[in-house]
């Protein structure tokens, strides 16, 4: 009964919270415009089933030779990554990985080898040691020399990237707010409360590192993203309807500018467009809509591999991502009980290739960038 209940009540809750798209609004470290970045490969976090205590794995897909290295974190460090790995971020020469159930943030080099503190211990930011009540790290974002992490406990932590330590934590006197995705515009960090039936977006001033205000949006905001022109968008879900319905809210100058019903439970940014994906269980294929941030128009688009059998797999689309270096569009597929798969489409939405994710529940793909050439 106990195990069952996880499936009935708790797992869906978790899955809901986990259902977040990738942070493509990460402000990359300042890079001189003369350098061309090339994606050498893709890191994939395979979450597996954290409720059953299953260890998450990090796999690496080498784009050049098409090989997949499974569970490279374990290979590199001889210790597992932990349970419930969620998000991965590269900033400077370091990689940060949030591991929710093991309750820490691992800091590694670009090859997933754990870094060490001066005292020789491995670089893990353990929530319980950082602050009483700080619990369950979820998402990461970098800005202006710092990495920020959101926590289910309703905190945002500011991480000093040299010391690899938390230097500041927002306060939360209430219950868990289930913070997930974050987005930064100017010196403000926006983070929605994803606890069931909540509708608040907390706005944190990065200078004072305090909540400055809260914006009310449609209930259950699951995703937040910005369009690089100062607009912030949230995607909210209504689970009480069949099928589920989703609301898209545009926030301008910290006020709700407009809302509209959309087909989408996942969102990523692709140039001037925001791509929404809606997975309706029982329906044939996921629906893709492109929202033009300039014209504010929504157009539906079909993704097809051209092969009916391969297309069938897209019914189990789970996550989407965009390669920041060449705008390739990634659809991550997770069929229950089997290894995940990744489908790649080029920027003209033409099917390129697919590869195995290396594990179950691929929750996040992350692009490993190398500096390839310098344009004189």
């Amino acid at each position, binding site marked *: 009964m106990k195990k069952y209940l996880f499936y009935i009540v708790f797992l869906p809750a978790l899955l*809901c919270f986990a259902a977040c798209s990738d942070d493509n609004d990460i402000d990359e470290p300042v890079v001189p415009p003369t350098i061309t970045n090339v994606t050498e490969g893709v890191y994939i976090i395979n979450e597996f089933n954290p409720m059953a*205590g299953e260890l998450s794995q990090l796999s690496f897909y080498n784009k050049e030779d098409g090989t997949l290295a499974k569970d490279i974190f374990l290979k590199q460090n001889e210790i597992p990554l932990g349970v419930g790995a969620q998000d991965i971020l590269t900033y400077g020469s370091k990689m940060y990985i949030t591991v929710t*159930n093991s309750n820490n943030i691992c800091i590694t080099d670009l090859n997933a080898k754990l870094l060490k503190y001066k005292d020789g211990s491995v670089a893990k930011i353990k929530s319980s040691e950082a602050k009483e009540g700080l619990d369950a790290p979820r998402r990461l974002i970098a800005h202006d020399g710092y990495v920020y992490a959101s926590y289910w406990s309703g905190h945002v932590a500011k991480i000093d990237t040299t010391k690899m330590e938390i230097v500041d934590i927002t306060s939360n006197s209430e219950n868990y707010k289930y913070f997930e995705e974050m987005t930064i515009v100017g010196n403000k960090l926006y983070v929605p409360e994803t*606890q069931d039936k909540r509708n608040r977006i907390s706005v944190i001033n990065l200078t004072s590192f305090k909540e400055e205000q809260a914006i009310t949006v449609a209930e259950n905001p699951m995703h937040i993203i910005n369009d690089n022109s100062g607009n912030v968008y949230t995607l909210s879900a209504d*689970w009480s309807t069949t099928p589920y319905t989703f609301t898209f809210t545009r926030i301008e100058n910290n006020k709700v500018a407009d809302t509209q019903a959309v087909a989408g439970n996942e969102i990523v940014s692709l140039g001037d467009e925001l791509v929404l994906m809606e997975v309706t269980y029982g329906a044939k294929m996921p629906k893709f809509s492109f929202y033009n941030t300039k014209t504010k128009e929504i157009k539906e688009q079909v993704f097809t591999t051209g092969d009916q059998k391969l297309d069938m797999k897209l019914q189990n689309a789970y996550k989407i991502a965009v390669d920041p270096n060449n705008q390739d569009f990634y659809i991550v597929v997770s*069929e229950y009980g089997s290894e995940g798969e990744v489908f790649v489409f080029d920027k003209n939405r033409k099917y390129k290739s697919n590869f195995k994710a290396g594990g179950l529940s691929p929750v996040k793909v992350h692009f490993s960038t190398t500096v390839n050439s310098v344009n004189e």
Partner: protein
Amino acid sequence: MYDSISTQQLKQVEISAKSKPSTSQSSTPLQVITENDILKQGISSVTDAVKRFNGVILKDYGGIGGLKTVSIRGMGAEYTAVSYDGMMVNNLQAGQVDIGRFSLDNISMLSLSIGQTDDIFLSAKTLSTAGILNLQTKKPVFTTKRSQLYGKVSTGSFGYFEPMLDYAYKVNNRIAIGANVNWQRADGQYSFINKYEGKRKRKNSDVNIFRSELNLYTKISETDQLDLKLYYFDSARGLPGAIIYDNEKMNTYGYLWDKNAFSQLVYNKRISDKWKFKSQLRYDYKYTKYDYTRIELSRSKYKEHEIYWSNVLMYHFNPKLSASISQDLIYSSLRSEFTEFDSAKKEPNRYNSYTSLVAQYKSDRLTITASGLFTYLKETSKNNKGKNYYRRLSPALSFSYKPFDTNLRFRASYKHIYRIPTFAELHYSATGKDLNAESASQYNLGFTWVSSFNNTPLEYINLSVDAHYNDIKDKIVIQPTLFLPLSYNLGEAEMKGIDTKLSGNIRIANRLSLDITGTYSYLQARDMSKETKSGTPNSNYKSQIPYTPKHSGSASLTFNNPWINLTYAVILSDKRYTKLQNLKEDEIKAYTDHSITLFKEMKIKDYQVYASGSINNLWNNNYEIIANYPMPRRAFRISVGLKF
């Protein structure tokens, strides 16, 4: 003094032998553990007893409070019924019964029957499952004294303490009452070895269980008997959850409060030499409260009500031919409250009817039983969509035949099982379309052989070998998704295997003997779904179903002597997979669990004294039955019982 013990023992054996059904004559596999076995072999719990049965897979999440369910031949726990004094124990929500909740202290007999039983004077619903784990409580037998008192105290490792008091009183020749109170507590904090972290401690697995029951036995006349049972169960248990790497505090928050009260009225009437009638009425209430996460946020409460009325009428055409008709009517409801996603609740009500017609021919050499069960179910719920009724006729046929004068019997049986989706499958998941009931077929072919050997040390030998084939069509698959899990009929599963059991008694000298028992099961339980939900070929086609070992077995050896009885028992299980993929990395290692028990029975004046001491997991093996739910390592247990 020793003489009195052996006569006492003999008496006990006779008594239990009388009520014990014959396992070798049964036309379907039947296994029995009596009170005497429980005492002598130091069987500590219902779970511990079930482990020694053949052809079952026990899912044990570890510790005293962890969920324990039984599945027959890998068919899934929803296919196993648990009956308590003849009435089925239900779990409306998940459809599987946690056998950890029962105490062994007041159990006189525990039996497991696979397929259709030969007893045809049963309520119709008992025909609806793949097998029944039957718990029979002790009925007082008065000889000279009017009252009997039995007290027992057990204690052991991990803060385990369990006192029990059983009292029976004969009011007059017609009326007797029996009362039983049992309390169990344990801290449940045991150590285990984690692959990457070394020694860790299982936390949040404390248990506090109170059980009580009151029985009233009324002999209205020579032909009429009315029994009333009032039962109350109250528990508070930690839910330790899976072990989380690098986080000792995780999963130390979950808690379960569980209350159950039922009253059960059983009326038996022998109308004539040919007619027998039994009516049973039960009202059952269950209250469950779960706290899940780190904070109060995730709390869910469930209330289940059930009214169950069963009538069975049996007619003997002649000494060999008999038939019975049974009708069960059941109303059940489930109400829930969630702190989160409360809008998802459905408030279902279920109206259930089971009708059975059974005919049996029984002679010394041949037993044939044929039955038909008609299941009808109607359901209403809030925001009800899709299918709300189920109906089906399920046949069963079994026979047992003794071709020669020796005690060699062949048996064969077939049974159809119609498993209606549980409340969880129907209402706590999103169903893309109507969810059909699962349809399963169960086939068994085997033999039993009992023989005694004169002038040899081998007193008797009892062998049973059964081959089985089972398949489940329209298997319900529950898939976690974005929000609510999705359930759909897609799967097909197939189980085939062999169950063997050998037991015997070897006489060494006067009053010195050895009881030996060994079981071995081979089980191939495979996913036979050709396609996945998305229509692509199933990459796990023909993979072994998670948590079903291909090879498993048990063995025990009891040394009977006038001084102190000694039993050594071992349970063995091959590796299992946690996932359908059957990858090497998803393997859980094979294990063995050994235990040793010393047992002594004495008579001091008018009292009968029992004392036993056991060491479980003698070799301190670190193992898991379910991945990331470590089992306790070496543990001690001592019990002392006193009968007045």
